[in-house]
């Protein structure tokens, strides 16, 4: 008889949900929260939603297996997705499989990174994805389960088992789920997917292997210039991987901060340039030993300053969230990219 790991379809007899969860935990399929049962009937409903998308999936590292659509759907079912979420989940998976995303490195690292999933375009509203108040937090099935489904795929298909392939020193709550929508309606500039060359009517999934959101609180500044001073101060973090200067990062501006910046004439590009200039880290904030390590891998200071990122283009900017004077900085793993995939419809 074949080992369970080699069977695409498994007969588990008459198990109730609790028994299935015990079984799934024994197989190493669980992220620790309760799972739905990926029955043949449920999986078939999910597979139906991606019938028009016949592109094969690349081998998924580190485990180096080519997944079947049914196996992927089983993860989305277990995560609690609705079938109509599945094209977004598969788009997220295609994004992390871009070679420069460096999925192997992002999963095996000791860093705390988790895949940030951002959804743009009309599908945000069709799926009721939260783009406004508490968009990074709890409360919506789509946000909660799309991110979780990708996490389960990385656990079960990629093989990123904590303590084995996943070597994160402390982990990160975003490893359970980290999915939100852009607030395009309150973005005074172009939404992110349009900045990347997609049409406004396209629905696009953007992923980056990042830390959780770092809050950028500024209730006092009344000018865009003042806000950028605060943002840059929060970004100049000698403990984030971006201090190595080798990877992207996101600045997710809250709508009220965005309105102030727009009023004062800032564009996405001018914000990017200002943040690049102002977010450098003074060498007095970096230990000598750490600096020697950075220099040995080619990241040399400019005078007394270390830049974060390789160029202003590493700073990715958009708008999300609701009312309030908060924005967020999301540094990445470092050796990764921001990857976008159009949702196949």
């Amino acid at each position, binding site marked *: 008889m074949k080992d369970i790991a080699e*069977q695409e*379809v498994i007969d588990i007899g008459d198990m109730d949900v609790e028994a299935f969860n015990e079984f799934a935990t024994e197989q190493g399929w669980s992220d620790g929260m309760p799972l739905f*049962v990926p*029955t043949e009937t449920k999986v078939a409903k999910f597979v139906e939603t991606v019938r028009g998308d016949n592109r094969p999936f690349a081998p998924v590292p580190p485990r*180096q297996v*080519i997944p079947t659509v049914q*196996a992927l759907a*089983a993860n989305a079912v277990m995560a609690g997705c609705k079938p109509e979420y599945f094209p977004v989940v598969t788009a997220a998976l295609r994004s992390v499989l871009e070679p420069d995303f460096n999925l192997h490195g992002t999963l095996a690292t000791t860093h705390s990174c988790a895949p940030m999933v951002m959804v743009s375009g009309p599908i945000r509203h069709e799926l009721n994805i939260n783009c406004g108040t508490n968009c990074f937090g709890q409360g919506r099935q789509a946000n909660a389960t799309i991110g979780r489904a990708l996490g389960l795929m990385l656990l079960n*298909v990629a093989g990123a088992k904590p303590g084995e392939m996943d070597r994160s020193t402390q982990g990160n709550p975003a490893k359970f789920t980290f999915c939100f929508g852009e607030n395009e309606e309150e973005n005074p500039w172009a939404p992110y997917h349009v900045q990347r060359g997609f049409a406004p009517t396209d629905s696009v999934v953007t992923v980056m292997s990042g830390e959780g959101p770092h809050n950028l609180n500024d209730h006092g500044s009344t000018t865009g210039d003042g806000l950028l001073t605060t943002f840059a101060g929060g970004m100049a973090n000698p403990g984030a991987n971006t201090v190595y200067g080798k990877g992207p990062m996101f600045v997710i501006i809250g709508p009220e901060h965005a309105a102030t910046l727009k009023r004062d004439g800032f564009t996405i590009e001018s914000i990017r340039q200002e943040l690049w200039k102002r977010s450098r880290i003074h060498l007095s904030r970096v230990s000598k030993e750490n600096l020697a390590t950075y220099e040995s891998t080619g990241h040399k200071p400019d005078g007394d300053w270390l830049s974060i990122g390789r160029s202003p283009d590493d700073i990715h900017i958009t708008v999300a969230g609701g009312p309030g004077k908060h924005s967020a900085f999301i540094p990445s793993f470092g*050796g990764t990219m921001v990857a976008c995939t159009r949702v196949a419809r």
Partner: protein
Amino acid sequence: MRIYNPSFGLSATSAEKVTLKPVNWATDPIALISNSKPNARELLEGIRSKLGAHRQVENIKFMAKNSASQPAPKELIQDVAKNYRAAILALGD
């Protein structure tokens, strides 16, 4: 009840195990490859220095990935395969 296996996939690697070729550790050229994490190079330097008591070390060379967080570039792997009989990798962490 029948369920789909969420970890099922087809192996993308060859069905055959990669076998190691014989190495003469007393004379063959060896690549010492650091993963670019702190102390990986120092560890390899220490090993090289100690090997010097038993064998010539001129053909034991240091190499390193460009970045600890990224895979070794193809050129480096090809260089090792072409010019060395053995490689010692240090995973500092």
